[in-house]
Structures are given as structure tokens and as C-alpha cells.
């Protein structure tokens, strides 16, 4: 995947983090424990971890390792 696609995916993720207007302010408790917006943000952080992993294995050159 080209660099600009990665840039676009990360940009979308950052925009989703700014959500105050759709799901990002819903404070209904999920599983009776965690406010929905808080869980939403944690999911975005985990998504960042997954995205970074795929970025590392597909885009970041192996040749740079040593």
C-alpha cells in the first residue's frame, strides 16, 4: 500500500478521535461499567495499535532494522 493511503487511514483515525457529536459523547454505561464514549476511545487506541502493527510489517522497510 502506498504511503498516501497510510496517511489517509491515520487521518481518518485522528478525525474519529475528535468525535463529540455522533457517538463520542454518549455516556451510557456499557456492560454496566464503562461509559460508551470512553469505550469508543479505548477501541480507537487499540485500533491504532493494530494499524501500527500492519504499518510496520507492510510499509516500514525490513532493511532498516540493523
Amino acid at each position: 500500500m502506498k504511503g498516501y493511503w497510510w496517511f489517509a487511514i491515520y487521518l481518518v483515525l485522528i478525525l474519529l478521535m475528535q468525535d463529540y457529536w455522533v457517538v463520542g459523547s454518549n455516556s451510557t454505561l456499557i456492560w454496566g461499567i464503562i461509559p460508551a464514549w470512553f469505550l469508543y476511545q479505548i477501541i480507537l487506541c487499540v485500533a491504532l495499535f493494530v494499524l501500527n502493527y500492519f504499518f510496520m510489517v507492510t510499509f516500514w522497510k525490513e532493511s532498516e532494522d540493523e
Partner: protein
Amino acid sequence: MSNELIIGITVLIFFLALAVIISYYANKVSSNTVDDYFLAGRSLGIVVLAFTQMATILSGLVFVGGPGIVYATGAGFFSGLTMGTCLAALMFYIVGRRLWEIGNKYRFITPGEFFRDRFESPGTQIVMLIAMLAFVIPYIALQPIAGGMALSGLTKGAIPYAVGSLIIVVTIIVYVYFGGLRAVAWTDVIQGSAMLVFLWVLVFVAAGQLGGMSAASEAVKATVPDIFERTGPVGAWGWKAAFSWMCITFFSISCQPPVFIRFFAAQNMKAIKWLFVLWPLLIVACWAPTVFIGAYGKILYPDMAVPDEISATLIIDYAPLWLAILIFVGLLSAIKSTADSQFHVLSSMLTRDFYVPFVNQKASTEKQLKVGKWFIVLLGIAGYLVAFKPPELIGFFANSAFTGIAVLCVPTLAALYWKRATAAGVIWSVILGETLALGSFAGIFPKSWWMGFDAVIPALILTTVVLVVVSYFTKLPSEETINKYFSNAA
């Protein structure tokens, strides 16, 4: 004295002694070179690099200030700050990767050395040194403050705040003095793990008092619902505030001096890559519990005069003594792991960016190590003295330090990626950007000017504009230097 208390005190002493033992072994395997003392011989592997970066950034704030801020202003605190801290992983790719390549090739030890060489300018080295000192020295006082408050709270004043702070500072000085960055990084693995585990233990201790996590969260929702609202009870975490915090953390973390030099200290690129991948998970795992601690604390103690004391109060009142001491070990870990890194990096910079280039250019390795170790002692004393009169919400005390460091991200990115950047551009952008940031904190520039955003936004814009404009009108470094950094081989 009860058996429980004796065991508890033994655990605490063992924990403090462990860092000194690690330092002893670090000293033993060290080759007594400048590279070895200040950069652990550029040997930090995947696990050590990830944990030392995490433990360095996540200070006493996660245990003390974070829950205190949630208690006072709501869980929205998690929003901008955590998102920005997680996103800082992207800067590890943009900045950290290049710094590792360059640092490894040209054997830089400090940020100032890199700037001096990149721009052929001692001025850039001294400006970076002053800017970093100005924002890190106040910050090193935060850790003794947090440690002193915690020790004093845990012992219900039996250990006075001043003595508690002193114990923290002296322990850190001892192991950093003897073991350098290797001791700091190795202890950070243990301290980072302890911090992570015991943060969650404290959540379960607080939830246990309210009938479990579900009952505790329902109680928060029923009694103080605003705490779980994203904007919080006092409207502190609206979109603009969260976005500002995201920018502050995103731009500042890679330019925090201890984080910056750890890019030079990585063993290989693989360590940087895995730091980039693991970082968001480590950050979320540490920040999420602060929200629950603060929120559940609000139910258990609705009217605390000093919100920063919520964690210590929960530990003392609800954990059995043996567990209280173990959780306290986690708290102490969070505090020490940041303070040791700050002491160490400041000593590195004062030695390599001030003493060697401006005082004694012919200083031998032994002399540099000796001076570096003395700086650690002096900084410890300075940090302790600043900590003597603590502010109420230490989380906000850190704010000016992070904003000031965020400004330095602009010249760092320019140095790494923009051939046209010049020494004058860097110097003037830092001076004017920091003036704006500091002026805002001092109230010289009214907050109303920034339309609800933090001063970091205008400061970043001003820094960028000044750097670009001044660079276009001033002299470039030599072609040889530009080729050194921008040819494929760089």
C-alpha cells in the same frame, strides 16, 4: 509494631534497595565510556526501550495528578490527553526513526549535539539546552512532590512531606549516579510493570468498596453523572480543550529530552519499530485506570479538599496494610521512573551541551563522567528545593512544561526533513515560540485571544511561521552538512 507493618516496611526497603542493586550490576557491566553512561552503550532492546519510554512519560501524574483531575473535572481528561499520547507513536516513526539513524551514525548523545552539527551552530545547541532546562527542571520537582505527598499520606503524617520527598530524591540520586542510563532503563522495566499492575489493583480496591466495578460505575452514574460525561462537571473537557491536549502530548512527547535521547540509545531499528507498535496499548493500559480511580473516589469521598490526595486516601483507608504498601510501591515506581530519567538527561545535557563545548573542550572521558555525576547530585538538590512548596493540582503544573517542549518539535522536524532550515530560523523560532507559550502561562497574553484553545496551538503556528520566514532570509549550513543529512546515506 505489627507483623504486617514489619513485612510492609521490609517490602518497601527491598523495593528501594532493588534499584540500587540493579545500579550496581549496571555499573559492573558498564565500560565507563561516555556512550555507556549516558546512552547505556546504545543497547536498549525492544522490551527495555518500550518500558523505559512508557515509565519515563507516565509519571506520578498517573497515580496522583490524573485521578485528582478526574475527581475535580471529570473523565473527559482521558480524551485528549490519552489520544494524543497514543498518537505520539506516529512521531516515533517520523522523528524517532530518523534520530536513531542519525544518532547511531554520527554518535550524538544529546539533542543539542545533533542541532549543533546539523546547523553548524553552537547557538542552536545552547538555545535547545536552555529551552529544555527551563521546562524540565520544574518538572523534576513534580516527582518529589508526588512522592512526598504519597509517603506523608500513607503514614498519616508520620513521615512528613519534606522527609518523604527527600527519601525519593536520595534513592534516585544513588542509583542514577552509579548506573547511568543502563540502571535507569533496567529499573524502568520493573517500575513500569509495578506501576501498571498496581494502578489496576487500586481500581479493584476502590470498586470493591462499592460492590464491584458494575455497582461502582452505576453509583457514579446515579450520584455524580457529570463525572462520566465527556465534557465533565465543570465543562473543562470540551472539544477545544481535548484537541489542545492532544496537540500538546502529540508534539511534545518525542521532544521530551529523556525520550529524545532514548532514540539514540536504541539497540536497533527493530526496537524503535516495536515501540511504535506497542506504545498505544501501554498508554491505554496505564491511563484507563486513572479514570476509574478518580470517579470511584468521588463516590467514596465526595468532598475532598485536595483532589490529588484521592489515590493515597483510597490506599490508606481501603487496602489492607500489606496491599497498601504494594500499591504504594506502584505509586513510587511511577514517580521514580520519571524522576530518574529527568535527572539523568539533564546531567547528560549539562555535561555534553554546556561543560564540554563551553567550559572544558578537552575534558577526558573520566572528567566528563565525574562532572555528569555531580550534576545529578546538584539537580537532585534543586528538584528537592523546588518541591518544597507544592501546588495543589500537580497535573496542571506539568502543563507549561509540556507546552514548552511541544514548541521544540517544530525545529526538530525542520532539522530532520527540511533542507532549507537555518540556524537563525531555529533560534528565532524557539525564542519567539517559547515567549508566546510562557507569556500565555504568565497571563501576559490573555487566554481569550486563543478562542478556547490552549496556547500550544498559536505557539506551534508562530514557531513554524518564524522558522520558515527567517530561514528563507538567512544563510544555509554548508553544502557538505546538508548532503551529510539529506543524501541517501544519511
